[in-house]
């Protein structure tokens, strides 16, 4: 398990310089995309960056703190369906505002779930998150206002606000923005008191308590942050897919990918989920185009099992060991 000390590609670059570097990279990527002027690139880019956000969010609770959240779909869908509901109630509400609302709602759900289950063994927390996913799915399937089982249509505007061009470019930009925020947060946590507290909880919760770590409070922070970010990642989805129904919104693919990518990339640092998302996402797209869309879905699961058995430190961890 990679230590928090040896953490990834930019040792020493933290805080404000790191965030600025992230912003620079994001701007460069977006500019490149505009120059390419390919719709396809933006659609794919959105998916990969979405998974960076989901994976990093999951990793804050999973890799850093050691609590496995299987209910990713619940938080992700809360974000997506908040957008659907808000869009119906207040059609003029700008998407960034909806992202914030989604994040807050999902974060609150994370807090609530955590409060109910985090006093128990980690295993029970994980099972409870599975339960949560189904409960939320059932609730939304029965909620006609957002379309219920029939699904909801959301009209994607023709032109992107602020930047012009196709709307999908705007979605990609927003997702990049979330990515910067989430990665900066993850990196910021890593070497902070909070990060050390998380690591102590992960390694030995009882010893952490005895050392003065307020384990319940920290776990609740992790759950809230993690859930909130996942909700944010789901907020633009309705505009991306234009038709959202529970079957696709709660697709197990999101959950498996969000877990598999950090596990494959490496759970010890902020870089792991990024590496995982890019590699696995890229591989999935390649397979989808060359073989079939059913097979690409299998890839994440198979790779995850393989890595979990053979290379638990993930790709980033493999490179660190060689150092």
């Amino acid at each position, binding site marked *: *398990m990679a230590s928090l000390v040896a953490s990834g590609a930019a040792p020493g670059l933290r805080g404000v310089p790191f965030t600025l570097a992230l912003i620079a990279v994001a701007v460069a990527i977006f500019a490149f995309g505009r120059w390419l002027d390919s719709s396809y690139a933006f659609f794919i880019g959105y998916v990969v960056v979405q998974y960076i956000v989901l994976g990093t969010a999951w990793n804050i609770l*999973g*890799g850093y703190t*050691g609590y*496995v959240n*299987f209910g990713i779909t619940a938080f992700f869908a809360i974000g997506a369906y908040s957008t659907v509901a808000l869009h119906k109630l207040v059609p003029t509400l700008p998407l960034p505002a909806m992202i914030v609302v989604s994040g807050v709602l999902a974060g609150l759900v994370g807090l609530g779930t955590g409060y*109910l*289950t985090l006093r*128990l063994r*980690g*295993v*029970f927390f*994980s*099972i*409870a998150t*599975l*339960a*949560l996913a*189904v*409960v939320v*799915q*059932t*609730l939304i*399937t*029965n909620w006609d206002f957002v379309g219920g*089982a029939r699904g909801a249509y959301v009209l994607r505007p023709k032109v992107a606000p602020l930047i012009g061009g196709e709307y999908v470019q705007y979605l990609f930009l927003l997702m990049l923005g979330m990515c910067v925020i989430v990665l900066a947060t993850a990196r910021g946590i890593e070497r902070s008191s909070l990060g050390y507290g998380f690591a102590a909880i*992960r390694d030995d919760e009882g010893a952490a308590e005895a050392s003065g770590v307020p384990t319940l409070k920290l776990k609740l922070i992790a759950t809230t942050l993690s859930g909130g970010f996942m909700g944010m990642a789901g907020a633009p989805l309705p505009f991306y897919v234009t038709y959202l129904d529970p079957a696709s919104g709660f697709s*197990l693919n999101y959950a*498996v990918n969000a*877990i*598999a990518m950090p*596990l494959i990339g490496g*759970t010890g640092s902020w870089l792991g989920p990024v590496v995982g998302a890019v590699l696995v996402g890229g591989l999935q797209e390649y397979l989808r185009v060359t073989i079939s869309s*059913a*097979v690409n*879905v*299998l890839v*994440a*699961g*198979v790779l*995850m*099992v393989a890595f*979990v*058995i053979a290379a*638990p430190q993930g790709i980033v961890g493999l490179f660190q060991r060689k150092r």
Partner: protein
Amino acid sequence: MAVSLDLLMNAVISGLLLGGFYAAVSVGVAISFGMLDVVNIAHPAFILLGSYVAFIGNTVFGIDPILAATILLPAFYLLGMALYQVYYVAFERRDDQSLRGLSFFFGVLFITEVTLVLIFGVDYRTVQAPYIGPSLNLGLFNLPLRLLVPFLVSMVMVVGLQIFLSRTFVGRAVQAVAQDQQALRLMAANPTKIKRIAFGLSIATASLAGACLIIIQPVEPSIGREYIGRIFAICVLGGLGSFPGMVIAAMTLGIAESLTATFFGPSWAPAVSFGILLVTLAVRPSGILGR
């Protein structure tokens, strides 16, 4: 009023029969999680595998689904042993965090589900048998045979396992391994071997449970996920490591779901088990009869 009572009675009876089936579905996890402390969340996937095996046996070879499942019990048993071996070598022996073990089983669940989709597609599959359709009419009560037969099969299986665990050497060793591995070693029994046998049994139960499932309702790969919540709700509510508790919890859940489906609509049924699970975990995690 009389109509309501009739409806109520039948809902309760159906719930009870369903509950018996739920016990068969959960007994595997009562062993793997309750006794071996292995969080096999992929268990529903193996149940579905059992369902599809019964489906093939029925549609391709024309045999009774329960018979098909019984014939393949040894195969499932071996599969369980193999799976445990992988789990043991990769995780338990390394004393790794439970994060990886959980992710492993989650991956297995996912891979199994997707593979089933690739082979069988997402259409609902059913089986044919003489007891699917007719009901036993006992005056006030209506006992659908398609619920009754799985109920009986399930009860036989659960009771049989309970007898095995308490009367045979291997069975008692399994109970012992849950509590004191060191003492087991002193008795010249290899704990790993015992655990392997127990896990094999756990997966073997999935074969029969799967056959029961496809008798009760049409099956498609993703319904496994609903069962995760049911299974763990039952095991937690019943108290880990207690068969009788598990059966009571299963009946309770069956009745609760049946009543919900009858009076609120079937689309709410999945939420019942998970709701019960969340509440139990929050309020009384040791369950009704748990240690």
